[in-house]
């Protein structure tokens, strides 16, 4: 996260780290149910097998396992069938853990939006992750507040790409607070009036975040995929006996 700050344990209990040996942390991910996390499809390029992955939850410092940490293996990886590597569209995947997590104050699922719940431009939300801060890869979870940008305005930053309805743009013109490499798959969450935090985006792509090109980050639009997500979980849980 560029321009963010170090978070505190328990502030983002749905944040998880998707890890694969020998690299360790590869991508962020988000807990949405006791045995289900969301991340982005491009994290699995070159590592499609569930066997090489594990999910670590309840940590703040990647380098210091906490008492609240829970680690699970990956049982199933479901990539969106329309994911396209070339244009990074439909960049979302659902991961089934090998067993339920224990819900604690430091490991808890985030809410999913309803399919008709879409974010207005100029709404302020949070992004979190252990990705590049512009100068280094941090050990401690970083958080940053970003503003939702309209798709039309966003398209003007990315001439070479088509910003589709499967995407959300967030950040600032100057790119002062933005996600970066290593944050992919992590959450863009917004607090709803009732005080519940809801997941609206998954960090997906953007300009090369520690170079001259600035501009907002692009996130997979979770509202667009909610029905697909719920359907895949239902099929995996109830129909594949």
């Amino acid at each position, binding site marked *: 996260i560029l321009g963010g700050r170090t978070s*505190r*344990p*328990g*502030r*983002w*209990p749905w944040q998880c780290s998707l890890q694969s040996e*020998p*690299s360790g942390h*590869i991508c962020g991910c988000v807990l*949405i*149910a006791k045995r289900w996390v969301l991340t982005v499809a491009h994290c699995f*390029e*070159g*590592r499609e097998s569930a066997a090489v992955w594990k999910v670590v939850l309840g940590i703040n410092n990647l380098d210091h396992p906490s008492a609240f940490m829970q680690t699970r293996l990956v049982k199933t990886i479901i990539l969106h069938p*329309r994911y396209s590597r*070339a244009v990074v569209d439909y960049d979302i995947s659902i991961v089934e853990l090998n067993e339920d997590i224990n*819900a604690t*104050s*430091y490991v*808890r*699922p*985030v*809410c*999913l939006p309803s399919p008709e719940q879409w974010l207005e431009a100029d709404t302020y939300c949070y992004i979190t992750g252990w990705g590049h801060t512009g100068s280094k890869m941090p050990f401690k979870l970083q958080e940053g507040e970003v503003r939702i940008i309209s798709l039309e305005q966003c*398209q003007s930053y990315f*001439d*070479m*790409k*088509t910003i589709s309805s499967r995407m959300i743009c967030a950040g600032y013109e100057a790119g002062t607070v933005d996600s970066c490499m290593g944050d992919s798959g992590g959450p863009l969450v917004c607090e*709803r009036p009732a*005080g*519940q*935090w*809801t997941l609206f985006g998954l960090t997906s*792509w953007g*300009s*090369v975040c520690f*170079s*001259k*090109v600035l501009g907002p980050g692009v996130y997979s639009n979770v509202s667009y995929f909610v029905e697909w997500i*719920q*359907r895949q*979980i*239902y*099929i995996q*849980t*109830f*129909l594949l*006996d």
Partner: protein
Amino acid sequence: CLYNSCLDSCGGSSLCDPNNSRNNCSQCEPITLELCMNLPYNYTSYPNHLGHRTQKEASISWESSLFPALVQTNCYKYLMFFACTILVPKCDVDTGQRIPPCRALCELSKERCESVLGIVGLQWPEDTDCHQFPEENADNQTCLMPDQYVEECSPSHFKCRSGRCVLASRRCDGQADCDDDSDEENCGCKERDLWECPSNKQCLEHTVICDGFPDCPDSLDERNCSFCQDDELECVNHQCVSRDLWCDGQADCSDSSDEWACVTLSKNANSSSFLTVHRGATEHHVCADGWQETLSQLACKQMGLGEPSETKLLQQQENDQRWLMLHPLWGSLSGTTLHKLLVNGQSCESGSKISLLCNKQDCGRRPAARMTKR
């Protein structure tokens, strides 16, 4: 792998692991960078002249955005060709040798286009010092120069009638970008061999029509995709299955969509929510005979909700619609859906049906983040 592109074992996503064996990595690889898919050569080798280690890295680089945008200014006819010779340098498949652009090509590109970048406060990419490239025909070193067959525009561009290149994302975007406005001509879906959504004139590739994913606002691209018999229903993937098989607990559609959303809660006048099963795509209520709390939990979980908050047995009305009842041996039946445990009703002894309320999933709260009083 030192100084050469990594083989698949390193994938596109990370540095070569130190313990990676010293593969013979100086092999050519097919060009996959969309920007440079119309070159007079098809193989490249990495790292390239800009220091990118993989084509994936090149595809998200600053230069892969800069050059296509610069090509639109028409500053130099062969700028895109030069850009590709440094983004995806030619690799001679026979010798594995990399063939660089000639110095003249680099100097002409820089001479004609660097000033244009200066106007918008940008610089020519640092790593492209032309002296690193050989003179044309110098001591029989081969280098690349464009011939008359070289495409001036990349596959990511639209070629105006005037010959200029504008980014493909600007084709039919409602604003004329070509100097002759040709990018805003023939913008109808049919003229571009695309499928048109009746409601909003959105153009779709034919490949996404009837693929099970609605793309038009009113999902018309997923209508009239198959013609089922009267006693059949259409699956999401447009396969036809007999109506009797709908929500019978057994997936009959190859995408299992005949077993989706089979259990719901339907509101009625006094806002009790009756447990409803859509057997044969017809709403059925559930007879209360033999009901157990574990079944209420299964019903709520199957609907993606939290724990049941209330289970009531409500008297049936005379003109009540169809209902289902528990299979006599439901406890021993394998399989995990509620509707699989239900059979068409004979006599419902209790004369009552199930009304159910489920809590929402407990989510989005962060108890540890509370500010602690000091």
